[in-house]
């Protein structure tokens, strides 16, 4: 049934779509390597050799410390959120206890909740406890949002894991903790990796929360550094292009390396139930 014409057409359509997706990013890469400081913006690939732009921007935009801050926050959030999502998802999937459905519904509501709807009291409370302008003021709410999705995601895995496997572990005398850590977790590695990639991308890109929480301090995340830099040099487009690429580089690297895990996470939404 698959005719040659259809296949050629398929490649054509997909290539065109991929070009539309990548075009602006390729354009920015050429821009970022172009001549700095020029207002008229003509792309010239033959002159795209100014690698010094990146060093310049790295220095002037304080991207070193910003990337460091972002890494500290994101790595802690990813590790803790994955670690807390696993036992929660396990209990929701495999144990019976009063209030299970209600608590789960409450937690899953967090997937839908926009940060905008609670940023005001969140900030007031952080300030009251003198936590604003600290790493924790960003880390803790990010973990809170992440585990809402994480518990949901890990539950979907544990619901499906073979019951006979768990029964066997139990008959062998393993308690629920050992069943989880020694029997089920080794099987859950792909799901954990997907979760980690999703958490990394979401929390690295997050802007509103660090903007509100850290604006009174020297701390800034990479997206904050980009926006600050952008505010100072509205039309210095070669530098702005370089700054954008620096900001997105860690996520793009993680995404390309673990592309399969990420797409599984998004596409799995269409497979659930």
């Amino acid at each position: 049934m698959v005719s040659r014409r259809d296949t050629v057409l398929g490649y054509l359509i997909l290539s065109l779509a991929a070009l539309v997706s990548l075009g602006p990013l390729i354009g920015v890469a050429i821009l970022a390597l172009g001549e700095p400081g020029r207002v008229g913006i003509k792309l010239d690939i033959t002159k795209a050799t100014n690698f010094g732009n990146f060093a310049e921007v790295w220095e002037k935009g304080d991207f070193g410390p910003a990337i460091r801050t972002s890494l500290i926050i994101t790595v802690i959030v990813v590790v803790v959120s994955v670690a807390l999502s696993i036992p929660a998802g396990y209990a929701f999937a495999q144990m019976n206890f009063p209030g299970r459905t209600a608590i789960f519904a409450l937690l899953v509501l967090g997937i839908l909740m926009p940060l905008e709807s609670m940023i005001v009291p969140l900030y007031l409370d952080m300030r009251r406890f003198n936590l604003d302008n600290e790493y924790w003021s960003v880390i803790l709410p990010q973990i809170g949002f992440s585990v809402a999705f994480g518990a949901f995601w890990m539950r979907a895995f544990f619901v499906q894991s073979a019951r006979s496997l768990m029964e066997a572990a139990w008959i062998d005398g393993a308690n629920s903790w050992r069943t989880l850590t020694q029997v089920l977790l080794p099987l859950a590695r792909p799901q954990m990796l997907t979760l980690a990639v999703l958490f990394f991308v979401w929390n690295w890109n997050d802007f509103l929360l660090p903007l509100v929480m850290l604006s009174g301090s020297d701390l800034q995340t990479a997206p904050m550094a980009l926006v600050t830099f952008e505010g100072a040099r509205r039309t210095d487009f070669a530098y702005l292009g370089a700054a954008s690429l620096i900001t997105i580089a860690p996520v793009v690297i993680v995404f390309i390396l673990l592309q399969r895990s990420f797409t599984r996470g998004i596409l799995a939404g269409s497979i659930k139930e």
Partner: protein
Amino acid sequence: MSLTSLPVSAGGRRTPSPRKRVPGEPRSVAYLYILPALLIYAAFVFFPFVHSIYLSFFEGNGITRMEFVGIDNYVDIVRNPILRSAFVHALELIVFYSFLPIAIGLLLASALHRSRIRGVAFYRTALFLPYVIAPTAIAVIWRWILAPRGPLNSFLEAIGLGFLAQPWLGDFTWALPSVGLVGTWIMFGLVLALLLAGVQKIPTELYEAARLDGAGPWMEFRAVTLPGLRYELVVALVLTVTAALRNFDIIYVMTSGGPGNATVVPSYLVYQQAFKVSQIGAAAAMGTALILVIIAVNLLISRAGRAD
């Protein structure tokens, strides 16, 4: 997914369990497993959310005493044209973030249902990339593309359509559609990849049967492709509509709500009212109204997905 291929043989011993309890521990231990996640969620997501609803009935700057004003803040959202326009803009953005990408995705995916593509991983990576990178960076990049002397206008001039060139983001008519088209760019690849994965799962026999019944391309689409993609469409709708309603970063960087108030959206007003003009109650009401809209729209989508 691959979960059906678990090594079930490891659990092959069929000793009947004495009690129907797996794993064999008192079930109240479940609370211990849930507690750490639940505590952080409750303290930093759920409690602030409830607190925000409470604050939405007050007026004040959050430092000195707050004055109870009942539902005045909500009445304001309906009465005040600027606040109301934020929600109108958010709904308009749904067209760009959701409807346009889904229309494009459906068109391309149904054109592709008969081709077997190799190297899907490469295409997926490319298509997903706009969805993965930081919205702040996307905003900076597109502010350049749409700049008065930027690549878009140069391109229009180069192909003889110079009269169409605009200061896109500075124009009262064009600012919102311009910001919206950035959303279309972010979302269309994601939606296309999603629908493509779905269309590959529709059995080819269904298409053959439709053709034998004399169905043209349009009937084929209506009778086979569309019903076969129902779950993917629900997921695409949820992801894109929620993103459209929550749009903060793009607006903050690209237009700051301007020119005038042409591109203000609810999440931008929450930030502005709370942290620029210190109207805590009004900001909280805006945030609460936003979540109500998001929940209502999501319920609508999931009901539509189940119904037809």
